[in-house]
């Protein structure tokens, strides 16, 4: 079965991103496919490549990048939420004349239409948030 996942909360602040990750992992282990994870509101903070959590803690952004690389999952940050919170990819860096980008591997920035598309293209859309 094809799944879409919506994550509305940032890493380490709330359990949403952990629950979403463990759900995605279990779905893949059961032979299902994750079409897209859409990160909305504070959820966009899951896509930073500048995080350095303590070594004995889980690395939430890297964990998403690795899962996406291994299983071809589309990780999308909402552009409006990303702009507000300083999440920047190379295109956004140029467009908004910033001096750096900070997006982690396998994440991309796009619009809310990607969430709607995930709802249309997948058979189930699951929301994790606060």
């Amino acid at each position: 079965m094809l799944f879409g996942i919506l994550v509305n909360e940032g890493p380490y602040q709330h359990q949403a991103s952990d629950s979403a990750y463990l759900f995605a992992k279990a779905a893949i282990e059961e032979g299902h496919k994750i079409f897209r994870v859409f990160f909305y509101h504070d959820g966009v903070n899951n896509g930073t490549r500048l995080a350095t959590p303590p070594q004995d803690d889980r690395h939430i952004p890297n964990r998403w990048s690795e899962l996406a690389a291994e299983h071809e999952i589309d990780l999308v940050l909402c552009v409006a939420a990303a702009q507000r919170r300083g999440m920047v990819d190379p295109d956004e860096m140029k467009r908004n004349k910033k001096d750096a980008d900070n997006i982690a591997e396998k994440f991309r920035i796009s619009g809310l239409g990607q969430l709607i598309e995930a709802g249309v293209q997948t058979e189930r859309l699951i929301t994790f948030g606060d």
Partner: protein
Amino acid sequence: MLHTVNKSPFEKNSLETCLRLIDESSSILLIEDGVYGALKNTSVSDSVINAQKTTKIYVLGPDLKARGLDKSSLISNIEVIDYKGFVNLTIENEKIQNWL
């Protein structure tokens, strides 16, 4: 329809709202702090027990364990499932309502 509730009933009223709207085709999965709604002898356990007449109630085991709880603290007939069980519930139910 599958309903997931992720808030403690002692913090927010999402479980109460969910219980008001369910019917016999519903299943409820308690996750994250929502697992506190599965405890016996609390101010909400009577309404949970009442809902069990029509609705199957599940609780996510890893979230229960993370809070130092186990099956012995729960209302009877609440099924403890893992993430694989969570995935299966989302497949068995065509529609999913995630109460936040």
